[in-house]
């Protein structure tokens, strides 16, 4: 679950780093956070998600699970961007909550 | 890719030759690669078959792509046949591995 949350956040960060989508996703925050840092953060979160799955189970299964969760996090952010930006921002929130829930267990 | 030959016979021949090179030809290259790799890889007789076959499945689309990116249709066909012949030669020269 932690991995899922991390990938969600990671995808969000990556998307936010793109000049095309930043205005929609970040709103007023856009000027505060430079996009390069967001991009690095995005990739770092995705790698952290991989580390989380590796910690949870043996490496083949971890790779498969990580690879499987990635498309869905991306898809969630994608749909948010296409249809309703609040959905994409909600995805980021969901990601954070998932990480928290996973840690608390 | 010869836009000025859009619907002429030159265009069709170009595409047809590349298509043959990219389909039958590419498979031939992959098959010869599989044979050559199986015989020359420094692995036991059975083990070598695995990487040879796996790589052959990657060689096939690469050969197809090359057939359509080659400078001309004859170059495409020639190149593919040459690669297949070379690989077949390597396989033949290596000979079947001993039991």
């Amino acid at each position: 679950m932690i991995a899922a949350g991390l990938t969600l956040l990671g995808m969000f960060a990556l998307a936010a780093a793109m000049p095309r989508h930043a205005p929609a996703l970040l709103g007023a925050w856009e000027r505060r956070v430079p996009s390069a840092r967001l991009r690095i953060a995005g990739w770092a979160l995705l790698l952290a998600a991989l580390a989380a799955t590796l910690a949870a189970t043996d490496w083949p299964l971890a790779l498969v699970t990580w690879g499987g969760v990635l498309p869905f996090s991306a898809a969630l952010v994608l749909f948010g961007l296409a249809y309703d930006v609040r959905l994409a921002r909600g995805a980021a929130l969901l990601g954070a909550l998932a990480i928290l829930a996973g840690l608390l267990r | 890719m010869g836009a000025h030959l859009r619907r002429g016979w030159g265009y069709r021949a170009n595409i047809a030759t590349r298509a043959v090179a990219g389909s039958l030809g590419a498979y031939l290259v992959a098959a010869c690669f599989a044979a050559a790799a199986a015989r020359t890889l420094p692995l036991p007789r059975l083990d070598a078959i695995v990487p040879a076959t796996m790589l052959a499945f990657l060689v096939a689309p690469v050969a197809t792509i090359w057939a359509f990116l080659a400078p001309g249709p004859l170059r495409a066909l020639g190149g593919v046949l040459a690669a297949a012949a070379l690989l077949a030669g390597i396989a033949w020269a290596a000979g079947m591995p001993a039991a």
Partner: protein
Amino acid sequence: MSAVRDGARQAMAWLHGWTGLLLGWVLFVMCLGGTLSVFKPEIGRWMRPETIATADRATALTAATSWLTKNAPNSFGWYLTLPNDRMNTVEATYDPGTGFVYRALDPVSGAPAPRETLGGEFFYRLHFELQLPFPWGRLLASLAAMVLLLGLITGIIAHRRIFKDFFTFRPAKGQRSWLDGHNAVGVLALPFHLMISFTGLLTLATLNMPWAISANYGKDMAAMFQAFQPGQIDRPAMGKPAPLAPLAPMLAEAERRLGKPVGRVTIAHPGDAAAVVTMFRDDARQIAYAAGAVSFDGTTGRVLADFTENRPALQTYGVAYGLHLARFAPLATRWLYFLCGAMLTLAVASGMVLWVVKRRERAPLSLGNRIVERLNAGVLAGVPIGCVAFLLANRLLPLGMADRAGAEVSVALWSAAAALALGAVLAPKRSWPLLLTLLALGCAAAALPGGAFADSVQASVSLTLLAAAFAFGWLGFRQWRPRPAPTRRRTREQLA
């Protein structure tokens, strides 16, 4: 320099489109069949609602072999899959005298389930044999898989801004939206698509790329198979009848030696003095397929061979094979496979639609493209209709019917054919909504009849069907409302 690269990208886009068009419908059937096969055991249970008994592996094995000894004594071999937590029956392939059949055997009585059906096996076979005779179905599937791999690679090369466009999706803009959608389902799950197409090719490699094997072994295939799976002993029948020794002790011994539960059991020449019982590790316990086997002499129970795969190259092959079959996957991962498979199926389908939409927005369609447009409706909606008809037939055909399993398959094929005919005859703007609505009704009808929610497996399948019904219904409903034709646009901007 970038002009050369652009030329290469255009060439790859051209190749991607044409190879996709040639085999797209075959790929659609394969991807749909494969996606449904992820839940093969669950669908099988849904299709045999009367068979709810469970038993441990030893009991089930003994019951099955007792029944088979009485009813298929002269079969060349019995090929069994023992029950596990996903499948409560023994899946058996055997020859009762009239050719090989596939049945699910009750784990307590050993007799075939009263509802004779192929179950999820239908989708599995559709996936790699396309309902065609051996070897043509598998050869066509192999060809389509090679085209899929080629399509993925050419698609990646042709997609100019693969990372920048990663989060792009502009709905309701005609061709632009279809392209965005096609790219989205293709790129988002790209690692899965590459993995599944490559591993799929590998599973059929003995048929479509056997040259490494023949280069190293020539005609001595027996030596190859023996080296490949030393735990499995193959020997010809002796012609002398002799009863099989009890199998439960053999099972216990095999599990002790392998250290893991047994999944598949093969009994070669049952009832003959040269019978061999081979037991394989359960595929659900590790990613690799057929990771270990133990063989016993059939009449005495003496161990003939015992092998657990430890050679790196062959372990790699086993893992690749296992990655494709996904039998190792726990429930959540199985759903991921299912959803990624659905995305691949949608990628193929959206590609076929995109072909037509792109040309339709440029100019009135040529005859060839109009045929493609109609076949699109017939195949992309018709094949799912066939699948749903299969499920409906399972619910509606009488239990005692002769060759019931074959009849279910016939219903599926004829329904798909009828849908194809409708797609050919009706104008696309009528056939699409009609076929989608029929599909939605079919899904709902299959989900609802009695016993649909009896246990969790039944409920999951039925709920999935209902969800599908809603999705297709919504899609179909949107198509009923007439939409204004998109204005013809300049071609330059449209080519991505």
